[in-house]
């Protein structure tokens, strides 16, 4: 085991994938020589050379297109989109092409690409640099969606994403870049679609992703002081969605609070809530609750942004409202 932060884990994950499979190539803006706008890809061009690590112009549509086309020809491209917010500039390539080509061609064409990006609020990047885009991705059949919350998961899920035959949107969270964790030195992979129960509990299930996982873990600790035992589930992937871990949990706890960064409407939390209210209905003793950001863009001012991102206090309050 070695300790590394989430930022370092990104470069490590890419490097491991590139070492393991010569078909893996990596492209994006400033990812090579500069080592990434957030220094998340430092060292890769030195190790793998210019034939495998490519700096591109500011051309998100071309980046995604190039990845798709190269994948159709047998490569395993990793494409970086610098901020998740920029996915709007190349959404057609992702949603209408990468995700649909296999189906439209009746299985003749495969698009095994990983689109890495980072998203999320909390650092003062304002409305056009703070979104996750996770729900939009999740709504597209044919696209897998990964949202790692810690360095080890990041590396393991990344390996699975690169090995996967389908296009995967891999959304890191920029507020986690400095979070440290233990990572196995040997190669490993975490299967896509398996949630992690990061804390066991009896009275209540908290479901979260990314930067909301540590928020829920802290909330669970606070709740335990009030004699409420909360189970915390880190979904890790949005597609495939591991509902069975959630259903097993609520069969025990009968109560759920979904904690989601970003506005509630049509978020991943709506889908989890909708499925819970359908197949999990008979387990429920109480309404399905969500703690989310308000229905607004992300404000810039520090004090407003703090109110925008769900907090430990809000999670605790929502949980306690059951009693």
């Amino acid at each position: 085991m070695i300790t590394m932060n989430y930022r370092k884990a990104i470069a490590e994950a890419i490097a491991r994938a590139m070492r393991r499979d010569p078909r893996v190539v990596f492209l994006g803006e400033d990812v090579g020589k500069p080592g990434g706008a957030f220094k998340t890809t430092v060292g890769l061009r030195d190790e793998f050379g210019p034939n495998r690590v490519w700096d591109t112009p500011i051309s998100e549509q071309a980046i995604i297109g190039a990845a798709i086309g190269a994948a159709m020809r047998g490569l395993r491209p990793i494409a970086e989109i610098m901020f998740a917010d920029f996915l709007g500039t190349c959404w057609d390539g992702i949603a209408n092409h990468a995700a649909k080509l296999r189906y439209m061609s009746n299985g003749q064409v495969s698009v095994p690409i990983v689109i890495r990006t980072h998203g999320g609020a909390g650092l003062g990047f304002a409305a056009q640099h703070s979104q996750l885009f996770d729900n939009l991705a999740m709504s597209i059949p044919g696209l897998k969606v990964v949202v790692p919350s810690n360095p080890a998961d990041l590396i393991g899920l990344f390996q699975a994403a690169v090995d996967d035959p389908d296009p995967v949107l891999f959304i890191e969270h920029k507020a986690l870049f400095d979070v440290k964790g233990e990572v196995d030195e040997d190669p490993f992979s975490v299967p896509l679609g398996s949630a992690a129960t990061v804390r066991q509990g009896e009275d209540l299930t908290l479901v979260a992703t990314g930067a909301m996982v540590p928020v829920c873990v802290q909330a669970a600790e606070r709740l335990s002081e009030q004699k409420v035992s909360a189970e915390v589930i880190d979904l890790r992937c949005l597609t495939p969605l591991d509902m069975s871990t959630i259903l097993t949990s609520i069969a025990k706890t009968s109560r759920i609070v979904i904690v989601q960064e970003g506005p509630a409407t049509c978020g991943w939390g709506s889908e989890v809530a909708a499925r819970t209210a359908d197949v999990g209905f008979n387990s429920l003793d109480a309404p399905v609750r969500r703690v989310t950001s308000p229905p607004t863009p992300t404000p810039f001012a520090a004090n407003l942004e703090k109110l925008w991102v769900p907090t430990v206090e809000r999670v605790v309050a929502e949980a306690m409202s059951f009693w």
Partner: protein
Amino acid sequence: MKEIRAFEDKLQQLFSDGLVRGSTHLANGQEAVAVGAAAALAPQDVVFCTYRGHHHCLARGMPPEAAFAEILGRLGGCCGGKGGSMHLTDPSLGLLGSYAIVGAHIPIAVGSAWASRVNGDDAVTCCFFGDGTTTIGSFHEALNLAAVWRLPIIFICENNQYSEYTPIAEVVPVVNPAADRASAYGLKSVLVDGNDIEAVRSAVTDARGTAAEGNGPSLIEAVTYRQSGHSRADPGTYKPAAEVAYWNTRDPIKLFETSLDLPTGELEAMNRGVEATIAAALEVALASPEPGPEALLTSVWGDAPT
């Protein structure tokens, strides 16, 4: 070219008979671009085309029965009926797809050329698109990237004078929507008569050589004419009669036949042969069953049983 023409004419008829659903875009008048280019390409080469792509697929060797069956939504179609007219695909022929979002395939084609560059293989990628497509952002991004990375790709703009119902001159500020923009990407301006099969073949042969020798992309504008309307339901009444008449005199098939100077008997025999081939292909397609209901759920994911 004749086979393509006969195929498209038959389609128009099938549409009138109510057998073709959705949208179909014929390439009548543009056959020389497809056949001339196909003649210049090698078997390992890769072709990307659009919703108006039947001619490219047939020229590249797609059996007409597979194309018909696809357009009719039958199991025997090249995509098992799941793609339809706008999405003919057959990787075994290097046909990596027909795309229905204007311009979206150009960056994808660039990716294919990039793969050749990374792998050091000798496949050249050929990407077809229309004149109207030169005004969309993905065209610009793709051309710029291909030029900067000097990728082995041939961009062929089929300037058929119309972007749907709008004459191209009304929506671009230059005379030749592709050729006049080559210099913006550091490329040579190449303009050819798209109704002259030999001219097309020669230009694409040159471009293929440039790509294969590692000298990067070419942008060819082939000037031609869309004899039909934009899509199956469009009679094209907005096209000036004189324009239509002029381009009829420049029909690529007629021009080629004239240049061949064959005895009439031989030509008629050829025509009969083509008609028979197409009629037989349609029979095969019509005999193909619909896809089974299980096909609805297959081929969404690569790791699920299909």
